[in-house]
């Protein structure tokens, strides 16, 4: 067995267990700083290690093809590591003041990360399922981590119920596909002639529905706003960028390697749903007063944009999805890091809580504005380049209407993003609270904003990496 292939996962697991142990051994009042520090250092090491793993020859399998480490998987693992890294970086103060079990918080984040990494590499339905459950169950606990807040507990229960239901649906779908094809390995399913039977089509539908729940695609999105609003703000951030990207990673893997023959069946569904997501998410976001709810709806729309790339179903499309997923991480970090600070120090995340932020914390207001504009796709932020990649890919495949919907809706999204900017720059802060920004938060917002603008101004470096990642997949 080629253990080198799963070295990243082993590293994360060791780190998670180590963090847990350190939390138990060290005296209680000293754990926060050291645990966060250890985690961050470990994750940076893993992130850099990821760069050494890119390869140009055959990609390694692990244990009877259960696990496939191609450049695509490596790219996504790096993306997850970046997401978790930033989340930990900006959540230190938040965790310190609002959460009761700090050490567990970090190790749970790492377990969720492990789940995501397994998802990115999974090459059969069972491994994918294990990864999905590892990630989701960690998130159930993380969402409820603010034990004093009833909103948080409510969100956790809601997430648990909806999540379990969707898991059940997906598992049933997997069993149907297994029943008709006799395999859970993606590559074997792909070649199986029984895939066209009614039972396996029903199975595929159920699997898709399961994924749509996880990705909160309209009409399976009802849980998202409540959960996003109730969850601790850093966890919301990770839900929006990490969990969503993981779902996309495995969805693309399943669709392109297990069911490519059924393209005629799922492509139209995906095209329509991505349009519905872009329209619905953006329109419903307009009315939201709470920024976390607003970002929940906007994340539905963002999932729609990324699905546009899946619809293209070719190399440029996949490259665009990878590119967009990465820039969305940076935009999300910027927005949620600011929200976490506001949430922690003012106890709310609505328009009133951020009003006057431009005076009390100009740097946070600027970061928030730039991050939101990146989500809307206004140059010179990364979002513009990302959308150009996505929509050129899909127009080339003949879906001009999808690009039409996408561009128009992203301009509509500017409206509600600018309402936030207006509150921050024009609004008056009645309580005159002093906003304290710690070094870690400052570092994370600055890094994310620099990344957003750097990718926007010279997208070529990231485009090259995504190209390499997409190439191994689309051989």
């Amino acid at each position: 067995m080629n253990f080198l292939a799963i070295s990243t996962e082993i590293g994360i697991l060791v780190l998670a267990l180590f963090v847990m142990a350190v939390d138990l051994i060290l005296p209680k009042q000293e754990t926060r700083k050291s645990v966060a520090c250890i985690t961050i250092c470990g994750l940076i090491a893993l992130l850099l290690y990821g760069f050494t793993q890119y390869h140009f020859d055959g990609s390694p399998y692990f244990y009877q093809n259960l696990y496939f480490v191609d450049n695509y998987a490596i790219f996504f693992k790096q993306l997850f590591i970046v997401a978790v890294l930033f989340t930990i970086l900006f959540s230190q103060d938040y965790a310190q003041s609002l959460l009761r079990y700090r050490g567990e918080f970090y190790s749970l984040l790492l377990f969720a990360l492990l789940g995501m990494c397994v998802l990115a590499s999974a090459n059969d339905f069972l491994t994918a399922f294990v990864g999905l459950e590892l990630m989701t169950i960690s998130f159930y606990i993380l969402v409820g981590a603010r034990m004093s807040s009833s909103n948080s507990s409510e969100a956790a229960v809601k997430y648990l119920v909806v999540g379990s239901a969707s898991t059940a649906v997906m598992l049933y779908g997997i069993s149907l596909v297994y029943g008709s094809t006799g395999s859970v390995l993606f590559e074997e399913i792909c070649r199986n002639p029984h895939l066209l039977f009614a039972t396996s089509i029903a199975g595929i539908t159920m699997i898709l529905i399961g994924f749509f729940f996880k990705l909160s695609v309209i009409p399976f999105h009802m849980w998202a706003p409540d959960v996003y609003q109730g969850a601790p703000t850093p966890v919301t951030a990770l839900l929006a960028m990490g969990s969503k990207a993981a779902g996309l990673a495995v969805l693309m893997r399943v669709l392109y390697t297990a069911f490519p023959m059924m393209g005629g069946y799922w492509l139209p569904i995906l095209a329509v749903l991505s349009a519905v997501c872009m329209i619905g998410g953006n329109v419903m976001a307009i009315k939201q007063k709470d920024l976390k709810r607003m970002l929940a709806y906007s994340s539905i729309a963002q999932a729609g944009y990324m699905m546009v790339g899946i619809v293209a179903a070719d190399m440029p499309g996949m490259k665009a999805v990878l590119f967009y997923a990465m820039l969305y991480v940076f935009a999300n970090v910027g927005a949620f890091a600011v929200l976490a600070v506001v949430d922690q120090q003012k106890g709310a995340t609505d328009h009133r809580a951020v009003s006057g932020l431009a005076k009390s914390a100009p740097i946070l207001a600027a970061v928030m504005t730039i991050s939101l504009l990146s989500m809307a796709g206004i140059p010179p932020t990364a979002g513009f380049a990302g959308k150009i990649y996505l929509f050129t890919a899909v127009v080339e495949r003949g879906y001009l209407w999808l690009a039409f919907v996408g561009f128009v809706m992203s301009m509509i999204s500017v409206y509600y993003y600018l309402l936030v900017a207006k509150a921050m720059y024009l609004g008056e802060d009645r309580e005159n609270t002093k906003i304290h920004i710690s070094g870690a938060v400052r570092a994370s917002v600055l890094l994310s904003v620099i990344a957003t603008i750097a990718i926007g101004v010279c997208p070529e470096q990231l485009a090259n990496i995504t190209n390499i990642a997409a190439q191994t997949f689309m051989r």
Partner: protein
Amino acid sequence: MGGFPLLSTVLLSPIAAAILLCFISKEAKESVRIIAAGAMTISLALTVFAYFTYDISAGGMQFTEDIPWIKDLGVAYSLGVDGISLPMLLLTDLIGLAAVFSSWNIEKRPKEFFILLLILIAGVTGTFIARDLFIFLLCYEVVVIPIYIMVIIWGSTKRVTKEYAGMKLTIYLLMGSAFMLVGVVALYLQAFPAHMRTFDMEALAMASQLGNFSETFQIFAFFLLLLGFGSLLSMFPFHSWSPDGYAGAPTAVSMIHAGVLKKIGGYGLIRLGLLVLPLGAKFWAPLIAGLAMINVLYAAYIALVQKDLKYVIGYSSVSHMGYVLLGFAALNVISISGAVANMVAHGVMSALFFSMIGYVYEKTHMRSVTELRGLAHQMPRVAVGFMLAGMASVGLPGLIGFVPEFTIFVGSFGVYPIFAILAISGIIFTALYTLRVLAKVLFGPKDTRFDAFRDARGVEMMPLILLGIVLVGFGLFPQVLMGVVGSGVEPLLPLLNHIADAPTLLGGI
């Protein structure tokens, strides 16, 4: 020119100044203004230099710069100016500098104001000198957000709130650009097979000549571009953002917006619509001519009854854009030269108007035609500015407005005689509303309420001097303007002849 990157310097000097301003103390108002003015003076000086060294007999793109940028998309940082974009560039830097001087007395957060203003100017400059479509779009979208922030912070609330005005302006601009983006993406993909793709506008025009765009495609894509550029040019029925937006915006934004930003619409229609999609342009030309006529008459008619000075000029600019559209729609060399020259003429006069209104409003906090009267007694210099702009707007010979409008009528009369006659009759309305406003505001008995307000002096005179010189200079020596414009438009002759002969789907309606 050796290796000196002239156009890059013109583009980057405001950006460099904006970055420099970020590091200057908030309190240092004087240095903020001086840096902004200095950067714009450099840009303007270089532009004037380029304008007079541009080789008219050679024509084509000059002062070119090329640096590959995003290779997998085929984007290059390529700049250059020809006879169509050079006057636009001159206009941008001229109005940019005038706008800086018009904002000299700004008291509220001057540092942020000038940073945003410089970004705005750089963005507009970029659209005119870009030879790459990607850069063009990028620069165009960059300007939207500074405008929004400037309107909601420094704007004024009169008939509509400044928040409403800012949002309306932003939404219209962005919705237009959404349609434009779809059209551009379609163009980009249709032009060349994969691996040869490029956003280079000349290459796209070449693809068009090679016949890579079918006629139906051209008609469809041109329609998308027309929606985008048309709403930017305040083409009826997408014009309503213009008066509201100008009324809410601070003086500098009104000047730049009415003076140059709007002209990106006309410029884009020629550069992209006509050169890349000639058959599409021919198909939609009659519709554009019809809408142009509505623009001219309808907007002028509304301007007659406006009470707020900014609304009068707002509707007047909608009306003047009708002439530009008419010149474009006639699709011949004379009328298109007139359209380009008229964009310049209107830019200068509307910027001067807004600058003068801004000055009066800054002092008296009044903009209403019914309240202001007899200002010529207390503010003779401002009155000169008003008169110059007003007379140019009416089209008085010897000022900048006459020759371009005359050229448009000459060019379009043969193609759309009825529309041309109707549009000429629009001049009567123009004269009516302009003279009515000027008579009420400037002349009549002296009103003692205004005795306390002093006339423009010192730096405040700069917008009047700068714009006034151009207004009279180009009026007395129209050849200085028309020569350069002609050198850009005349190469279109074979293309225009070609589409005039080409049968179209509906025979051009």
